[in-house]
């Protein structure tokens, strides 16, 4: 949390009552959503209700032992994040306190209370290179210089969005810390690398545009069937054990975004540790540098205070917007938005608000749409273009998608990746149900796939969808009468569809090669299945019995394409082999 700049300390109040994370204070002069420090230990909290001279505060830390009569101190500013170089390769809690710094300050592996730390290192110096010269006129949002933040990312130093702008009177290159002035304007305004921004407020932009470029995930079922656009929104709902977190991790690892903000909201501590341990060692597929160099982690695990869980998604998206302003494509993963919604519910119930559906507050839908609307492909105020893609996991109770969080999310997002417990049970991963999922970006992204992968991408994909659809229908009959009762052509379709499922849709996230699949390879595996399909139907028409067609030894090799490093050659050989083996049959 931001405490880098001095703010006027406003009049103090006195605690009136304490109930879990909700504290009320008397005589506190604070505005709605202001940050306050509660009790003699100075626990951080936020004003969420004002009634007469009673102010209600949600506290971001444990409140055990806090008693009425203790002081409450206002800061006069809303919950903000510190923005500036040093956010990448960092791991924060829900209110942007760096967890590594907290460990050091607390001297313990356990999270103590009342310790605060700025979100970025205020002492560290960065090498600043000017992008403008003395005499240039700059406006709010303009880039005045760059700082090599990590080997992958140049951090752009921008004029704050609320600045009046003016003419540059002094600027020089050199090493500065984030609080030193790097640019002076004729208006007397001094610009530092450090900015602050209130988390609940969207950073300004010029215009939201229609996204036309896919966010390539390297996951065949996503890129192939249900692509998400750069600047798009997606939801991944699924019961526990269906692979939400693995899918989110895969996206964080392989998505071709410039920056990844990963928000672990109310999830498992060990999972965050896995990310912290894995990411520095993994290679970013686009730059070859460590994956951590482009990643900002926000970890508010399920046992950390509930109010900070409510704020962590806002902290995440504000950081994402800041990088968007530099012209980067940012992908934000929130795992899981259900925990965020539950945090809202918990606080709402402590406030004794009238509950809506299933005890969730009536404003659930509004909060969700507000959040997802901060995603998009934007023209920034400095003229650059950048995007924020948001991918939210949803954890519906009992795997029932009709519950409020899933339903309200689906009303907003345009991509729906439905995870399926049955598929997970038979270890079909990623267990994304191809019959239920959808992507509304498909049509607007087709031109990109046609230009950058293959011109017949949409047709081939449609063939795959039709085959899988037909399989779903045929499976219903098979369940009743058995496979052998079907006509030969339908038996063949089932066989082809099986290869589509096993060779194409399934992907092993834990296999070094298979974990990432470039669009070209996605296309070629799909196309190899189609080659088999076409040749097989030709053979069938020529009178070859279906058993002989499905028995050729080349066919099972389709399932091994995923793990091949030299897949191009492998597929060339395999297609020839399949065709020649089938030719031999008639």
């Amino acid at each position: 949390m931001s405490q880098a700049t001095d703010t006027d300390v406003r009049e103090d109040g006195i605690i009136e009552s304490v109930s879990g994370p909700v504290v009320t204070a008397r005589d506190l002069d604070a505005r709605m959503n202001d940050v306050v420090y509660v009790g003699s230990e100075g626990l951080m909290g936020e004003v969420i209700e004002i009634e007469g001279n009673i102010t209600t505060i949600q506290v971001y830390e444990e409140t055990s032992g806090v008693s009425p009569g203790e002081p409450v101190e206002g800061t006069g500013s809303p919950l903000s994040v510190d923005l500036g170089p040093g956010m990448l390769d960092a791991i924060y809690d829900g209110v942007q306190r760096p967890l590594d710094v907290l460990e050091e300050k607390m001297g313990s592996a356990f999270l103590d209370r009342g310790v605060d730390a700025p979100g970025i290192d205020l002492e560290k110096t960065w090498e600043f290179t000017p992008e403008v010269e003395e005499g240039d006129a700059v406006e709010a949002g303009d880039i005045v210089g760059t700082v090599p933040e990590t080997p992958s990312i140049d951090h752009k130093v921008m004029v704050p969005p609320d600045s009046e702008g003016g003419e540059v009177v002094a600027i020089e290159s050199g090493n500065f810390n984030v609080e030193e002035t790097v640019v002076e304007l004729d208006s007397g305004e001094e610009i530092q690398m450090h900015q602050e921004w209130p988390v609940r407020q969207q950073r300004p932009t010029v215009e939201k545009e229609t996204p036309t470029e896919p966010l390539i995930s390297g996951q065949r079922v996503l890129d192939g069937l249900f692509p998400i656009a750069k600047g798009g929104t997606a939801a991944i709902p699924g019961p526990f054990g269906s692979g939400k977190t693995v899918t989110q991790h895969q996206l964080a690892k392989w998505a071709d975004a410039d920056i990844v903000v990963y928000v672990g909201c109310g999830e498992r501590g060990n999972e965050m540790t896995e990310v912290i341990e894995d990411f520095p060692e993994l290679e970013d597929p686009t730059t070859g540098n460590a994956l951590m160099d482009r990643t900002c982690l926000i970890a508010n695990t399920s046992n950390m205070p509930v109010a900070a869980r409510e704020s962590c998604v806002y902290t995440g998206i504000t950081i994402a917007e800041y990088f968007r302003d530099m012209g980067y494509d940012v992908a934000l993963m929130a795992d899981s938005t259900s925990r965020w919604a539950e945090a809202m519910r918990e606080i709402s119930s402590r406030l004794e608000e009238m509950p809506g559906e299933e005890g969730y507050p009536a404003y659930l839908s509004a909060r969700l749409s507000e959040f997802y609307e901060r995603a998009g492909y934007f023209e920034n105020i400095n003229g650059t273009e950048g995007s924020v893609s948001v991918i939210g996991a949803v954890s519906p109770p009992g795997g029932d998608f009709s519950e409020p969080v899933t339903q309200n999310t689906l009303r907003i997002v345009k991509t729906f990746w439905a995870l399926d417990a049955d598929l997970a049970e038979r270890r079909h991963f990623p267990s994304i149900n191809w019959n239920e999922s959808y992507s509304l970006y498909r049509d607007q992204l087709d031109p990109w796939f046609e230009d950058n992968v293959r011109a017949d991408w949409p047709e081939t994909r449609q063939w795959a969808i039709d085959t899988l659809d037909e399989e779903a229908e045929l499976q219903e009959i098979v369940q009743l009468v058995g496979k052998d009762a079907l006509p030969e052509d339908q038996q063949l379709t089932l066989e082809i569809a099986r290869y589509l499922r096993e060779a194409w849709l399934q992907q092993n996230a834990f296999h070094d090669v298979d974990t990432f699949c470039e669009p070209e390879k996605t296309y070629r595996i799909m196309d190899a299945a189609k080659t088999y399909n076409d040749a097989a139907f030709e053979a069938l028409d020529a009178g070859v019995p279906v058993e002989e067609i499905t028995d050729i030894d080349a066919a099972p090799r389709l399932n091994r394409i995923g793990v091949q490093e030299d897949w191009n050659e492998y597929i060339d050989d395999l297609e020839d082999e399949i065709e020649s083996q089938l030719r031999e049959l008639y």
Partner: protein
Amino acid sequence: MKEYQTITEISGPLVFVETDEPVGYDDIVEIELSDGETRRGQVLESASDYVAIQVFEGTEGIDRDASVRFLGETMKMPVTEDLLGRVMDGTGQPIDGGPEIVPDERRDIVGEAINPFSREYPEEFIQTGVSAIDGMNTLVRGQKLPIFSASGLPHNDLALQIARQATVPEEEEEGDDDEGSEFAVIFGAMGITAEEANEFMDDFERTGALERSVVFMNLADDPAVERTITPRLALTTAEYLAFEKDYHVLVILTDMTNYCEALREIGAAREEVPGRRGYPGYMYTDLAQLYERAGRIEGREGSVTQLPILTMPGDDDTHPIPDLTGYITEGQIYIDRDLNSQGIQPPINVLPSLSRLMDDGIGEGLTRADHADVKDQIFAAYAEGEDLRDLVNIVGREALSELDNKYLDFADRFEEEFVDQGTDTARSIDETLELGWDLLSMLPKDALNRIDEDLIEEHYREDETAEAVEAEA
């Protein structure tokens, strides 16, 4: 310490007291009844002129004249290595007639969250000797893996079997760092019957495990509210032993369903807005505060592994208790009624079971290089066989292809040979995997599409298929 005789309301497990001095949230309270009996409770809500207190031992017999003392501190637990071998009640008072506990330290029972940055990722394989777990849903040190069971199923036998057999293979070989990292079992019972408790105690005594165990007993006839602190005492002890004294601690908590019932009771008494099925809206957070206390910490020897047991009401895993648990824990082990009635011991249904930490805990150098592939293939083949069972009921075995018949046989043999092993057999991971290969070799080689070709060459039993064909003929 101020004493009040200003109780205004008594309702269920709650007592409301008027106060004129501020009282800390979560602070411990002593209530002295007119007959001199003392009860303990905790502050649930603190306002400037009154507090709400939750009384652990129940409010029976409390009247408005009872006097209330606020101790000015939150609930603490005396911890020491000497707790090993001791039996306590649900509030941490010794009930084994042993000497008084001289604490090294007094620790807050709520416990602070482990900084995710300070955690160490769990990847040390624990061999439980149970094939369905070791082979298919491997447990690792620092994991929390609940057993999803239901009334009338032998979940306790499984928990005991694991507590008895659990070892870490490599360490035995090294043998030298035994001193630094001993194994301890903490048993937290919440609302279980005296008979079940005896079953556990008898087994602990029979196997000599009691010496390295700490037992907390809240029985079915003990006050329900007390159940909310029993697991916290157990976990506070576990953290102390693991992170201060370098023990590898296995915490068995049973039955989490009773714990959640107690939460609901308190919530209802406080007239809170209920969430699903009347359980409080904060149950996820509350359960997480227990389950997340499992783990490893960088730079410390010990670990806390949790094995909570819960009985699913109506065998329904969408019920809030198993549902919320599944979202927090790192997998789950399902005990299956059908398998149990078939006499399979332990009746673990591997298909819906899952260990999330498995993939990093197995493989070369940890278990065996072929472990992951074998597991994937068995899952796929068993799922296929399970599916076919439905079909076979309609069309009969003859209508199925040869391969389909093999899958059916595979599923049967998998249950009878792999899963069924009795409660006293401990299988090493090698035995488990070899058994897996025996079964997989029933299937033709090219059906093993999840296994690396080299591994098939190395392990596939060529004659096994021949035998199967002969047997069929």
